[in-house]
């Protein structure tokens, strides 16, 4: 170790995993439906895509990704709910891994709901 910059580089690299272990009540939450219906419809790659994307963008200290059970709209699985404190909960349906970067960028970073992926758009 020859400099503080070197130490900081290691710190930044390792920090994301540690953020996962901190309870942050103000964090935005991404809830991926992972009951049997969700898993069958392909929720696992979606869950992992969220994890990767959020780590890549350095959002681990402000966003947590968790699983949840079946919320009763099995025909629309994989279902992802996003809760940002102070904003209305948004439900995305039939989510595919390819849609994840856009949801993260538009919704979690810029607070613009991706309306076309939401349950409201599909029910029309």
């Amino acid at each position: 170790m020859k400099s503080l910059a070197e130490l900081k580089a290691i710190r930044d690299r390792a920090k994301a995993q540690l953020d996962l272990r901190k309870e942050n009540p103000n964090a935005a939450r991404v809830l991926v439906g992972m009951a049997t219906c969700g898993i069958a419809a392909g929720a696992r790659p979606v869950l992992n895509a969220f994890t990767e994307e959020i780590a890549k963008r350095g959002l681990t200290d402000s966003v947590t990704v968790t699983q949840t059970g079946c919320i009763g709209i099995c025909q629309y699985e994989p279902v992802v709910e996003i809760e940002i404190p102070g904003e209305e909960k948004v439900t995305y349906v039939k989510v595919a891994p390819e849609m994840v970067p856009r949801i993260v960028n538009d919704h979690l970073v810029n607070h613009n709901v991706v309306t076309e992926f939401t349950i409201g758009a599909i029910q029309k």
Partner: protein
Amino acid sequence: MYRSNVLVCGGTGCTSSHSLLIAEKLKEELAAKGLDKEVNVITTGCFGLCALGPIMVVYPEGSFYSMVKVEDVPEIVEEHLNKGRIVTRLLYQETVEEDTIKSLNKTAFYEKQKRVALRNCGVIDPEKIDDYIANDGYAALGKVLTEMTPEEVIQTMLDSGLRGRGGAGFPTGLKWKFARGNDADQKYVCCNADEGDPGAFMDRSVLEGDPHVVLEAMAIAGYAIGASEGYIYVRAEYPIAVKRLQIAIDQAHEYGLLGKDIFGTGFDFDIHIRLGAGAFVCGEETALMTSIEGKRGEPRPRPPFPAVKGLYRKPTTLNNVETYANIPQIILKGAEWFASMGTEKSKGTKVFALGGKINHTGLVEVPMGTTLRTIIEEIGGGIPNGKKFKAAQTGGPSGGCIPAEHLDIQIDYDNLLAIGSMMGSGGLIVMDETDCMVDIAKFFLEFTVDESCGKCTPCRIGTKRLLEMLEKITKGQGSLEMLDEMEKLCHYIKENSLCGLGQTAPNPVLSTLRYFKDEYIAHVVDKKCPAGVCKDLLEYTIDKSKCIGCGLCSRKCPVGAISVTDYVAPGKKKPAYEIDHSKCIKCGACFDACKFKSIYKG
């Protein structure tokens, strides 16, 4: 990137109830389900709530599973980690509320705690230096080496008001200042990890859960006093701690955080481990250093103090593990931050090892000045089986007993001394109404008699004589004069012993004499043990008027002391039994066996 972290406690307590098997099984199950790239299993240090071990915490949900068994693992993996359904029945029940799950930090055990020394225990993987660095590890060393002069470091320590956590409470900054002030070609930094108090295990938990914090703090101390070498003296009975320390030292070397030219500043520092054989006296600073030198662990008179002539007769600073665990935080957050916690003369937090008659056996860290009542009743969850609190013993064999009347005292170094106990290393043993205080004093004295090194007479012979008197009292051979004689001898030993072991050994006797004299008097005058502990003062008797003659006690008696009589109590069908006191060994088997409460103890 893992989506979920499963933390399994790998401290000594949980390990002994097979937590490592649980971690293995978890990895196996996750691999079988193809989840091993998504879920990370981490073995951590102690979470503190040892009574509920083995402990497992799943993040990001923060689900706290307690008393987990290997057989529970497949269910947790399938339900929680695969499908996201928390296995409520295995959660620590205090975190479960009707339809929501409370955060761990909101439970009675954790809510009143303030974790400084233990901040990484149960959070990081102690065998991964990256985990420590991620939580600001080695940043304090970096700051000290690149931005501060040694004098500034010492001033920060002085301003923080940090006092030694090993027991005596000497200001750490002052210790460092003295060692800095003595010029020598070589100086040493030592770490006292010879945790000898049989009721304390906070140093072990820090070493097992966060070994790097000790290394970092020792390097800071080395810079402050001008030393390039350090020794950690740790007992060989702590195999997990020793193993993780060695791993930590190797990793720190690999990263260049120990060794030559650290952070390119020209500062060199290296650390060696020395294993102790477990002698209590080696926790005393001069005996510890004599033992590191390879000699028999005996204390030597002070002065000269270690800051003048310590290890290998060179200026040395010796601090305790918990003291070191506070130091990097003080450097990073500032002396004012640390001094804002605690009481006027005792700053910061203190870790206590809760044991004895208490529901939440484990480790707690609270700000100095927290009352004993808060620690025992709120954090500790009170006394099991609805029994009444009698006393709390602090400071281990060197400390004293605190009675119920002082439950509301604010715990700090000076308040404890004022009521005849001491902080010691922070062992806190709770006793209820079924504990005999004379017996407790005898227990601790047996320990010090065993552990006295024998170098000085007041300790070697004085404690032995004291123990003999206590044995007589518990056998009903004591007298009132003996109590006065005992007290006199206690003061004599305190004043004339060479080291801290002898100077504090009479404390358990003195404090019980002070607060529980009535129990001593019951032993010597009435020849009775009110708590029913001292066997020689006990007698088991069958109340013939209640005995229904079932004969269960007679069958349970291991020495055949119970036989049937020809007396049949009015209203009973069979003849009653009686105990032959000349044969009775007072084991209590009959007392426990009798379903009709016809046997009396007293």
